[in-house]
């Protein structure tokens, strides 16, 4: 009957967004009087698996088969459905991401489970089971009742304040059947900027728009990001112009981010860009135009030339250390 949480691994370690999902799942388990079990697939670092205990899970089902180390939503969904059956789980939690949604979707169809993606808060459980979700790209919320016997919740970043204890989870080996049909695709190249912090997980993001003028001008922005330990993002025209790689594109048609701090440099704040950042806790806007719409969505603003201001900020951050 346990709540089952599917976690994503990065180089064998449980991703930060997935640890939040574990904390969320553990809280739901408490609310429903049961325990939380984690499902982890592929090559994993055992210390990292045990660490999910600190976020409230008592048990980890680990499938160590190397075939599952490479991200494969088809196989992951099938294994998840098998784990749900073994554990007789009624509530399944995943962190929202491209992979999380893909796995949740296929598992939903296998299990005939109601699915809500984009959950922003703990459920309200009384006679009914109701969740709050983000809709219209952060412009609104919806409360939705889930009526199916098995429920799948795909949870957004910051849906819960995750705190960590020193508790450790027990890790059990799980040996599902792996279906050949889920391994038909042949993977070509994988380009991954492994040294970079991923936007989805970053607590701080420094982002640049067309106001940066040219790709050669990115250094001061990268310097500030480095000083802050931040990931870097950009507006759509910037990635359209190939000034920055596409996976940095934030907004309605790009990545939706929810960091603690978003610093926008030379971005006007078009509604489609705002749609991707309105989950941020704090927004800082640096723009030379005092009328730039972004200031209306910001917590702190500086009217001025980015190329003047960025080095000053970097120096101030370094002075803190």
């Amino acid at each position, binding site marked *: 009957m346990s709540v089952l949480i599917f976690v994503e691994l*990065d180089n064998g370690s449980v991703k930060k967004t997935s640890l939040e999902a574990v904390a969320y799942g553990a809280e739901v388990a408490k609310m429903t009087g049961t325990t939380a079990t984690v499902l982890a697939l592929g090559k994993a670092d055992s210390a990292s698996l045990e660490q999910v205990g600190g976020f409230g899970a008592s048990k980890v089902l680990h499938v160590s088969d190397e075939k599952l180390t490479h991200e494969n939503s088809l196989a992951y969904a099938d294994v998840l459905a098998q784990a749900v059956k073994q554990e007789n789980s009624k509530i399944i939690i995943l962190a929202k991401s491209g992979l999380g949604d893909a796995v949740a979707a296929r598992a939903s169809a296998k299990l005939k489970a109601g699915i809500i993606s*984009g959950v922003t808060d703990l459920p309200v459980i009384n006679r009914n089971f109701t969740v709050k979700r983000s*809709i219209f790209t952060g412009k*609104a919320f919806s409360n939705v009742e*889930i009526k199916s016997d098995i429920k799948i919740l795909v949870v957004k970043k910051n849906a819960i304040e995750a705190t960590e204890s020193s508790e450790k989870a027990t890790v059990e080996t799980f040996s599902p059947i792996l279906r050949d049909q889920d391994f038909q695709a*042949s993977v070509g190249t*994988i380009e991954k900027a492994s040294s970079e912090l991923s936007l989805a997980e970053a607590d701080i993001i420094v982002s640049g728009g067309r106001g940066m003028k040219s790709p050669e001008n990115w250094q001061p922005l990268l310097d500030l990001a480095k000083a802050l330990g931040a990931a870097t993002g950009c507006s759509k025209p910037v990635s359209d112009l190939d000034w920055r790689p596409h996976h940095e594109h934030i907004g309605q048609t790009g990545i939706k981010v929810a960091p603690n701090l978003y610093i926008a440099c030379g971005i006007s704040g078009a509604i489609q860009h705002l749609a991707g950042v309105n989950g941020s*806790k704090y927004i800082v806007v640096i723009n030379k135009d005092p009328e730039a719409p972004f200031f209306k969505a910001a917590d702190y*603003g500086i009217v001025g030339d980015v190329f003047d201001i960025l080095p*000053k900020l970097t120096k101030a951050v370094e002075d803190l250390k």
Partner: protein
Amino acid sequence: MKILVCITNVPDTTAKITFTDNNTKLNKAGVQFIIGPYDDYALARAVELKEKLGGSVTVLHVGGADADPQIRKALAIGADDAIRINAEPLDSYFTASQIAHVAGQNNYDLILMGRESIDFNSGVVHGLVGEMLGIPSYSPVMKLEIEGTTATLAREIDGGKETLSATLPLVLGCQEPISEWKIPNMRGIMTARTKPLVVVEPINMEEFTVPENYSLPAPKGACKMIPADQAETLIKLLKTEAKVI
């Protein structure tokens, strides 16, 4: 090459979202509806593939007659015919079941749609449809080439991209830069008027989720302005006031 493109009918990206009827309905007054921007990319690529490889493009929409202008636009962009499943797209599972039911009767080589709809942002319909039809699904796809029965695609992954090849049939959730949005030309608009748009009734099914009500985020407080010549003050405030660095 038989391609199905599923499109959503959603408020324009600049639309101001409000609700009526005690926060139980979207207020559609003054809101312009468009083909979902991601679906628009999928449609554009489908039309290009048809032009290159021959075959047909069918657009499919689950929704009411108010979407017909958007469906006609898709026909004007280059789709050959259209199917509208006459039902409110209640939730992802319901919508996917309707799509899978129609798709299952027609043997499409490719089923394309946007990576997500911009109203509910779920990003799960392609995965659901794939599983319901028992075929692979991939998303978000940013490059797609077809040779024979093999699709070569590039997919965005966390912090990068991956290329893979898979055998048709496939369901793909698309995003830029898979193609560029197409604007219908005069000839397209003229011919779209007479292209077939078939309306079919939905299949009955159990309701898994029920929306109760909607709400808007709390309004943002005033922005604290920091003079440019005291930029370093910002860092102090972020540390001591916001406590985020």
